[in-house]
């Protein structure tokens, strides 16, 4: 491998995971998982713990062996290769910096493995630290850095070896909220600058939606939906996705001739072939609007505001309809007109909705 030290951006390579299988005893961690990452793309795998997302990442890294399927990086089948031959850069959840090396030595470690000379590797290490904004911290040990700084050094270390793939295994989850969102944007900036194909694994939907080109929502060892963040959010393909990504109202209704009737409103269906009968319609809070004027006589969609949660530009209003409560999200200015106690009438936007048949347990975020 040549050891050029400049940080020229370069196009990433395509990565394909094909029909990956992985079992731990009786537990199936990955069930026929296939995923293609386009060159330079950042894909986030999102799902609850135990959904298989970390297993997928570790199979791609070569830290675990698949029971079946292939891993192809840049056209080369690497399924049988051990981790140290795969040319992947990895950032772990936390504590992955070598504690007996200062920051630049950590970054230079992978270059040392690639037989880069001492002068070159220090130079490149400093450049990489500069890239993540830590040039001034080159001589600090991990214990002298904050959690966020440690993760940036880990990012620089992973990228220093010019890997073909960058793998991020919940890199932000050990950090506190403020640092998390800053570092998230920082990771995205660096990833775009370097142009490296990246797989990002997280259980935090906000993180995944904010950073990724495409989001893959995983459940029980397979990908339920893969698509751009906006699509995953606005057009969830399955009830699981609808409930895992964002907040969702579960409104009882009845399916009849291709539409679902919810409290007097007919909503088109995403699942066009749904059989007739009772069902739960999954309605986003954004698709619910409220009016505090006009006809407020008793009706299926008339109720009382019981809480208003101020979220910044938007507010979330909880409305008690007697038998159920419904969440509605709207600009804060609109919510100001209906403080708690106000009688309001709800309107459901006639976007296509998903329906769930059985009472699935609410998904924890």
């Amino acid at each position, binding site marked *: 491998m040549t050891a050029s030290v400049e940080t020229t951006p370069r196009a990433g390579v395509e990565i394909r995971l094909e029909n990956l299988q992985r079992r731990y005893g009786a537990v199936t961690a990955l069930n026929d998982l296939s995923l293609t990452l386009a060159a330079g793309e950042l894909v986030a795998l999102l799902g609850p713990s135990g959904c298989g997302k970390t297993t997928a990442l570790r199979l791609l*890294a*070569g*830290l675990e062996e698949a029971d079946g399927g292939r891993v192809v990086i840049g056209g080369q089948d690497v399924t049988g290769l*051990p*981790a*140290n*031959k*795969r*040319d*992947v*850069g*990895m950032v*772990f*959840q*936390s*504590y*992955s910096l*070598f*504690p*007996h090396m200062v920051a630049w030595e950590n970054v230079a*470690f*992978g270059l*040392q*493995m*690639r037989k880069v000379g001492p002068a070159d590797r220090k130079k490149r290490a400093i450049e990489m630290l500069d890239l993540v904004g830590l040039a001034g911290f080159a001589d600090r*040990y*991990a*214990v002298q850095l904050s959690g966020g700084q440690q993760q940036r050094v*880990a990012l620089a*270390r*992973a990228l220093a*070896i010019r890997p073909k793939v960058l*793998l991020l295994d919940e890199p932000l989850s050990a950090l506190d909220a403020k640092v998390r969102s800053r570092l998230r944007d920082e990771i995205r900036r660096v990833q775009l600058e370097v142009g490296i194909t990246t797989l990002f694994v997280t259980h935090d939907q906000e993180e995944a939606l904010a950073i990724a080109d495409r989001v893959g929502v995983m459940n029980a060892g397979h990908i339920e939906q893969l698509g751009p963040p906006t699509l995953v959010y606005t057009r969830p393909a399955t009830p699981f996705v609808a409930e895992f990504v964002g907040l969702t109202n579960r409104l009882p209704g009845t399916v009849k001739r291709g539409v679902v009737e919810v409290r007097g409103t007919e909503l088109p269906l995403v699942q066009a072939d749904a059989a007739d009968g009772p069902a739960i319609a999954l309605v986003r809070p954004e698709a619910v609007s409220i009016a505090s004027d006009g006809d407020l006589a008793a009706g299926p969609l008339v109720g009382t505001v019981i809480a208003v949660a101020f979220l910044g530009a938007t507010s979330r209003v909880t409305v008690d309809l007697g038998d159920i409560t419904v969440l509605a999200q709207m600009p804060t200015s609109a919510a100001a007109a209906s403080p708690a106690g106000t009688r309001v009438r709800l309107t459901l936007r006639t976007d296509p909705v998903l329906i769930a048949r059985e009472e699935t347990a609410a998904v924890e975020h």
Partner: protein
Amino acid sequence: MMGGRRLSLDWIGAVPFLGYVALFLFLPTAIIVAGAFASEGGPTLVNFANLSRPYIVSAVINSVILSAVTAVGGAVLGAILTYAIATGNPRGTFRRMVTSACGVLAQFGGVILAFAFIAAIGPASAVYVYFSQHHLDYYASGVWLYDLRGLELVYLYFQIPLMVLIFLPAVDGIKPQWREATESLGGGTWTYWRYVAGPLLAPAFLGSTLLLFANSLSAYATAAALINQGGPILPLQISNAITSEVGLHEPGFAKAQAVVLIVIVAIVSVLYAVLQRRTARWLQ
């Protein structure tokens, strides 16, 4: 004024303890140090000059060799056992059993340990009888069990568990992510041990070895029960000097030897402290 009075009253509470340790910890220490430099005629260095007697010199050398051998042997074998424990389930029964056993065995020593080895592999043991009947007389050139070589073997019995107890926390501190990070950066098993785990564990390993060295250096009872004649190591010589006729005529002699032992232990402690300080910069 009131504060001052209160304070002096408060100090009375610590008097029984301080009085006791003054009498039974500081007084004996003072007796040793003062006595080492004293003779009937007043201050002297003659007790230290007497240390140049060949049997004392050889006892010191033997003690250092014995301690070094059992420290290194105990450290290496203990480290292997530690690794076997640390790579297992951290909450498993195996680990709990072994660490509990080590807690007991590290303290198991002295007379009973010596007898256990005599019963196990001594000249009257079932093992020896069996081996000698099968033409494997391991005492053909003398019963080395009652010798320095015997001590080397027997001391391992408490050195290995002690190593496990003091080295395990360091090995537990090694995060699996470091190995995975090494692999993803292109390093193999050798690289991992050479550049990551090795340098990380080396200070703890050396420090533990020093503690084992001091431990072995101070041990007396096991050697006294195993070795009937002579005093090949310093603790036995000290004992001889206290209890024998000759020793009673030279009350300063045992004290000078005791000072030597204290000095060696002190040197080891200083080395240990230096080692601790070196690792402190990258540990919390």
